[in-house]
């Protein structure tokens, strides 16, 4: 009998607490949402600002011509766009495979001391200021070869890139449950087959995100480029000469006192944002949604073929 009374007592207690908690819940929810808004507003306003200020500068001329004379307001950022694409592309060609391989090593074969040291150095490397890496590339390539070059720029950027790729690859692979590896092993598949064909396939999304993050990061790096490709006003000639790139061009333009130069700077910034966005979307679609892309391409081909 007495326990029944006690239960009523306990129940009465809970009712009170619940009401208090609902209020606290609401308050916390509001705080969280305001934090999110506070975080998005600067991001949104940056995009809006750049768009607002830069859209006026965009034109075919802007996108394809070499810079005009200083302060004239003519010309464009053609070489800079070309340079960014080349240097980022080259850096990825070097950095992504190395990073992915390291990530695979750390994740799949990494239960030993060597792996632990590699992981440690990788993390330290990720935190290096990019200007230091730029100086390193300067010393190792520019001074040795005797001139600024695209090689040096790609090298410097790949140094920034591969720790990020290695880390994100490792984390993505680790997220794949061990049971898939077991299933693959039980089928009599060798370890590298299991890793390449099963584990990586399952970790694809995470890995692509990691690579895209790295690409976005190096797409905007300026300091290392100053020391390696230097910048120029001409289109790409060969790998052994200085080259322009959008971050460099933006920097140069923004330092000039002329309004037209400022406008061009905003335009270049807008172009850079679009390029990074474009690469991101493009790679994602190709790698992650291969099936749908193939379908769309097929229907397009049929339509075009039909028209003709």
């Amino acid at each position, binding site marked *: 009998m007495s326990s029944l009374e006690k239960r009523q007592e306990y129940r009465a207690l809970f009712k009170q607490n619940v009401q208090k908690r609902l209020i606290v819940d609401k308050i916390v929810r509001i705080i969280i949402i305001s934090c999110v808004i506070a975080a998005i507003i600067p991001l949104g306003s940056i995009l809006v600002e750049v768009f607002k200020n830069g859209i006026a500068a965009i034109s075919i001329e802007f996108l394809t011509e070499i810079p005009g004379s200083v302060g004239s307001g003519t010309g464009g950022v053609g070489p800079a766009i070309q340079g960014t694409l080349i240097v980022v592309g080259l850096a990825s060609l070097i950095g992504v495979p190395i990073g992915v391989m390291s990530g695979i090593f750390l994740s799949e074969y990494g239960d030993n001391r060597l792996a632990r040291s590699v992981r440690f150095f990788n993390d330290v490397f990720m935190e290096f200021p990019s200007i230091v890496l730029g100086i390193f590339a300067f010393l190792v390539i520019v001074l040795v070869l005797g001139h600024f070059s695209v090689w040096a720029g790609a090298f410097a950027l790949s140094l920034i890139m591969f720790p990020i790729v290695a880390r994100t690859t490792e984390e993505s692979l680790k997220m794949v449950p061990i049971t898939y*590896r*077991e*299933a693959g*092993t*039980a*089928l*009599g598949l060798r370890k590298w087959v299991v890793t390449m064909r*099963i584990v990586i*396939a399952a970790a*694809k999304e995470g890995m692509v995100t990691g690579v895209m993050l790295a690409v976005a990061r190096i797409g905007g790096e300026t300091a290392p480029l100053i020391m390696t490709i230097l910048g120029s006003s001409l289109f790409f000639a060969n790998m052994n000469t200085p080259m322009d790139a959008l971050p460099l061009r933006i920097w140069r333009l923004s330092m000039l006192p002329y309004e037209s130069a400022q406008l061009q700077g905003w335009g270049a910034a807008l172009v850079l944002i679009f390029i990074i966005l474009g690469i991101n979307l493009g790679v994602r679609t190709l790698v992650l949604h291969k099936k749908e892309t193939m379908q769309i391409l097929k229907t397009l081909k049929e339509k075009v073929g039909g028209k003709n």
Partner: protein
Amino acid sequence: MTSKTQTTSDLFENDSEKFKMIAEDVTISYGDIPAVKNVNMKFKEKSVTALIGPSGCGKTTFLRCLNRMHDMTKNAKVEGKVMIDGIDLYSKEIDPIYHRRKVGMVFQKPNPFPTMSIFDNVTAGLRLNGVKDKRILNEIVEDTLKMAYLWDEVKSDLKKPAVELSGGQQQRLCIARALAIQPEVLLMDEPASALDPIATQKIEETITELKKEFTIIIVTHNMQQAVRVSDYTGFMYLGDLIEFRHTKKLFTDPKNDLTAKYVQGQFG
């Protein structure tokens, strides 16, 4: 009833029938701790053997040593012999990959490869080993899915992603996948424990069909399942094999006190 443990040699002494697999003096330790101690078992061709016992008794550890899965675990040490058709799996000359293809395995939680379709899952063990002949792949897919009682349910859309199947269907898919590499022995680690009763029933029907062709060893927590499905049952406790007999005998008239206690739920 006795407290003496029993080995399969007692049971099979006068038997001249063929044994597909023989485990001799198998001891498995993780570091210094022995998980399976000196276990001897013989598995008859085309039969189902169930391994029962409380959690932590070593039955799953033992099962996994039968296809050398412990090679994947860092500080696992396996001593003794595991022989298939007279050849010791653990001898230095044997490539574990080769014999793992003789012994297939189905795991507790269904684990179809998430990025592959039904067809690709079943043929994974073949394609990733270089088998490209489309005709053979198609034949094997149909054959194994039929054996796993899944063919009728999926034949209309084999390209569907495997993860879209229900739990029971996924598990049958995993059975088909294991069968596709043409093993001779099938190991099953609590294959129905994550499934609902109807899916469980289908798995049990599958096992009963499969035993006409394969030698099956199944670890199970469900004693009624062991009674329904197996010909022989081994009871393990704290790493030792306590009793190993014809299933009906073990469950109606166990010889060892511990066995009787366990099967009647008097543990703990």
